[in-house]
């Protein structure tokens, strides 16, 4: 029996470590560094049409974090099907597509098309990208819009649907309940926090796109708090992320109420990390005689609440 296997609704993972969208390319760039496969790999955000993304610089360092403003550069659905599918076909773990659109209809079309691909095991609906003008975060900061997008995706999808939430909201529980009600199988959270950095030598914003998304260890306390809050108000499983970099961080995220844990920024810094985390978690479970991760998921929640 595999102590590390977890269920995310209909989706079964061999272990709860996932690589986060936008930080592991389209999987094939990362896989050479992976000795043990994480339970899931979430592909870079896809849109219907090809996008070139934002001007450079697209990345800046901040205390214990990074700002990025990639702006969803991606080959678009057609090229993805043509040239990228084959590159991920051999990666023997759950492959999760991450989709964005300007309109509900775009999300719906992407869903339909991706549902047909054998290489894709689930669809993550990005309603939280802070780096694009239209769509993106706008859907993720309004419960009605979030409900609308997610229910349309659910309707069109033959695969499990993961709704990815934005932390740039007053009360994330409201959005979480909306997407649960819309039929999402899983919630993933958090996307990046909107932030900015100014170059004091020039007096100008550092990023080409002025603002960007803050990720990395700096935001972990916010991510932990939000996972902890949402775990108390929804019944669907949560993929927790935001600043996870060590086994301790993985455990903290699980204890806050996440069933699986994504690593984003930390994978960029050390592409071998996802594999190491799987190993370390296995060792930890063996040592602590944990036979099912359920026994630590949500440990920190108020006691009636343990999931």
């Amino acid at each position, binding site marked *: 029996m595999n102590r590390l296997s977890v269920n995310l609704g209909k989706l079964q993972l061999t272990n709860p470590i996932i690589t986060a969208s*936008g930080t592991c390319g389209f999987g094939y*760039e990362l896989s050479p*560094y992976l000795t043990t496969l994480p339970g899931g790999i979430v592909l870079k955000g896809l849109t219907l049409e090809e996008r070139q*993304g934002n001007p450079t610089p697209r*990345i800046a360092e901040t205390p214990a974090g990074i700002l*990025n403003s*990639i702006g969803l*550069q991606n080959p678009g659905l057609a090229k993805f099907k043509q040239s990228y599918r084959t590159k991920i076909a051999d990666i023997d773990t759950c492959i999760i597509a991450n989709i964005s659109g300007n309109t509900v209809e775009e999300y719906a079309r992407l869903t339909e098309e991706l549902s047909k691909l054998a290489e894709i095991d689930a669809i993550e609906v990005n309603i939280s990208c802070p780096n694009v003008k239209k769509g993106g975060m706008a859907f993720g900061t309004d419960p009605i819009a979030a409900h609308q997008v997610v229910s349309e995706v659910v309707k069109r999808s033959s695969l499990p649907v993961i709704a990815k939430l934005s932390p740039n909201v007053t009360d994330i529980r409201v959005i979480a309940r909306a997407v649960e009600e819309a039929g999402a199988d899983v919630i993933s959270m958090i996307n990046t926090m909107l932030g900015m950095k100014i170059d004091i030598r020039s007096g100008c914003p550092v990023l080409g796109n002025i603002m960007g998304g803050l990720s990395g260890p700096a935001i972990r306390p916010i991510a932990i708090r939000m996972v902890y809050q949402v775990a108390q108000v929804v019944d669907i499983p949560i993929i927790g992320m935001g600043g996870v970099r060590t086994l301790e961080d993985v455990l903290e995220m699980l204890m806050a109420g996440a069933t699986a844990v994504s690593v984003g920024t930390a994978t960029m*810094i*050390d592409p071998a990390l996802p594999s190491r985390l799987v190993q370390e978690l296995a060792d930890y479970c063996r040592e602590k005689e944990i036979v099912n991760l359920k026994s630590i998921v949500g440990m920190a929640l108020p006691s009636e609440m343990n999931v």
Partner: protein
Amino acid sequence: MSQICRSQIIEVLHLNDRYSCLQIYAPQIAETAQAGQFVNLQVGEDGSIDPLLKRPFSIHRIDRELGMIYLLIKVVGVGTEKLQKMKAGQGLEMIGPLGHGFRLQNTGKALLVAGGIGIAPLYELAVQLSESGVEVTVLLGVTDQKDLILSTVMEEYDPQIIMVNPGVSSQRKGLVTELAAECLSSKEYDQIYVCGPEPMLKALHQQLGSNLINSQFSLEERMGCGVGLCFSCVCKVKQDDGTGEWKHERVCTCGPVFMGNEVVF
């Protein structure tokens, strides 16, 4: 294939307070590294949060037999400051060799044009070109007296130097693009290699004309991962479809070296 490896600093040679040369024992990297490739290295301990990201540096010199690589570092911020202060014996986590290096031809004449620290990858290139019998001309543009030290790392190739702010020295004042123009008008070059700050690259790119097709540009862009995961490091290159439209390509995996007729400034 690139590898993640723990390497060890053998020596930190302080050229002056702005430049240092690191000799690093990293046999896995030295074994396959090519001129123009780079490494991405973690400054400070593993798991450091300050700085958080790895830093990319061109491979300056390769000594395959001893398993050594050399990096030429210019101090510009937190990371390079810390690097410069590291001591022989300290460990360094790095990934490499990364990216596509220069595509060398074994014949004819080569013009190597460097702006400042852009000289770093050109040294190994010059070594390899001359070993295969190519005639190598090196041009180096620098800003001030302190930069002059960069010429010494290229001494054996007798670089021609031009300086923006010559101050009291006897150096020629001007931009490296002027030197390049003079060279190109007086001689034919079969291979042209350029590395330096963006304004210089751009100016040369405009000036090269029909020589663009024989030229290679080594680009720099802020990097997140260095291995193609994050799309932070893009530059503009021509679309394959001949429309003349540009697209964004990752410098870390498709570059850092691009053909002159492919890159768009």
